[in-house]
């Protein structure tokens, strides 16, 4: 029988070792930057796979989130006679928070899990070993293009999410509830700050893009090469990504907006 303290210590050390492996992988991914730059076709294929194929779910979700914001915002703001400010409220919530965060969660579920499964299966079927034996570094050739694909796609998807969300808020506020369309746009234009709101939102989504693709690639690459191992890797990708995104969002928000 192992005494509980020793077991705790052992799992702590194992977790630390895994964290170390994940960081070594990140170094390897960054080391593959040049290889990816000189093979733009590999990168474009991944931006397509991770980004373009995720647009539908991102756009539809963005529309609904924007419409809900429009409804909720209107009821709250109209109690204070400030319904004209609906545009600012919708745009600020989307650009600062919901755009980056919800997009990251959607991408983790849609593309991150797929990445982890793909890499895990390539490992289980010895494709990664075969590349090694052909003197091709699988981290540089297979993983790095996916890493940068995710990194590039995430802010673009988040921008799309926010843009569609703002339109959704407009449909509800102006189309349905009869607010003045000019006020919706002009208030938004006047009060949303480029560097405070837009740039900070973009920084968030770049960070989330890095974290989500990194987690997915690591889980796939470190997966036990069996069917069960791959399925565990995909589950872990989604769970770890969601926790990391929400936790990081708090930290980033505190740093960016907490004067």
């Amino acid at each position, binding site marked *: 029988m192992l005494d509980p303290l020793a077991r705790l210590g052992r799992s702590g050390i194992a977790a630390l070792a895994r964290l170390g492996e994940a960081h070594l992988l990140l170094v390897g991914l960054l080391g593959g930057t040049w290889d990816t730059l000189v093979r733009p076709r590999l990168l474009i294929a991944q931006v397509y796979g991770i980004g373009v194929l995720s647009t539908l779910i991102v756009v539809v979700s963005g529309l609904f989130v924007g419409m809900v914001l429009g409804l909720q915002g209107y009821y709250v703001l109209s109690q204070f006679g400030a319904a004209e400010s609906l545009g600012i409220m919708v745009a600020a919530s989307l650009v600062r928070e919901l755009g980056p965060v919800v997009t990251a969660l959607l991408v983790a579920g849609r593309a991150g899990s797929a990445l982890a499964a793909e890499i895990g299966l*390539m490992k289980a*079927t*010895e*494709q990664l*070993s*075969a*590349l*090694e*034996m*052909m*003197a*091709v*570094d699988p981290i540089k050739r297979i993983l790095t293009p996916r890493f940068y694909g995710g990194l590039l796609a995430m802010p673009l998807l988040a921008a799309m999410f926010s843009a569609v969300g703002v339109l959704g808020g407009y449909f509800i506020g102006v189309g349905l509830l009869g607010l003045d369309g000019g006020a919706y746009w002009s208030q938004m234009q006047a009060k949303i700050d480029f560097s405070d709101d837009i740039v900070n939102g973009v920084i968030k989504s770049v960070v989330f893009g890095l974290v989500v693709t990194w987690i997915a690639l690591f889980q796939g690459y470190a997966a036990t090469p069996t069917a069960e191992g791959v399925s565990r890797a995909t589950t872990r990708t989604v769970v770890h990504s969601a926790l990391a995104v929400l936790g990081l969002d708090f930290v980033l928000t505190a740093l960016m907006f907490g004067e």
Partner: protein
Amino acid sequence: MAEGLTGRGASPVGASVPPGEPLVRIRGLRFAHGERLLFDGVDLDIPRGGVTAVMGPSGTGKTTLLKLISGQLRPASGTIEVDGQDVHRLGRAALYRLRMRMGMLFQSGALLTDLSVFDNVAYPLREHTRLPEAMIRKLVLMKLEAVGLRGVQAQLPATLSGGMARRVALARAVALDPDMILYDEPFTGQDPISMGVLVSLIRHLNDASGLTSIVVSHDVSETLSIADYAYIIADGRVMEAGTAAEVRASRSEWVRQFLDGLPDGPAHFHAPAPDLMRDLLGEA
């Protein structure tokens, strides 16, 4: 130890091996997968320019041996030298340079599933050479013709049978014209005709380009028919070594049982296990 090994001096292959440096020299190899000790002080030489067979029962570690030679696994102790270089002391760049001179046929084929058959065979050429696409096309078609699969060049690996996939993998393994090829069970899953073609192809590839081949297999007769030298490994040791004829004529009881496929003898068909009756009664 098998009697065939005693009193043979430094080279474990014996007096019948041509003089000169072996291409692969393994000394004192020890390796364990978890608790299971697979190699316990194995010495083994692969002579240059010949076909060397490594045979042994399923699960003795033949695949593991190939992974050790190619530097995919690291031994617990002992050294493996390929062409005078200690594989496990090489840096990444040097190991990759060495691997460019090695082809490996994986037991599972290990084709890249998102590329067509043609692109799979072209992959190492596109990675490591600057040949024009027209030249690559000619080379790939020649390699595919040699394994009889030029007709499936546009298909994806998922649409091939296991035996066909392994022949494509063979075409890919020889695409860069390596100095040494490691074949992991090249004959399993082949029908009699493609088996015959493969047997002569391996021999022909070896002789035509003067390369060194290691064939890992438990198909005794096919493998011995093309091998110049042969090793039989089991229980973490080399049980027999020598030229193909010497091994075939071995008088070791264990080797005779393996070669002739007899159910009774010193070798065991079963993996180590407690007594069946006690296991069934749940006392083990």
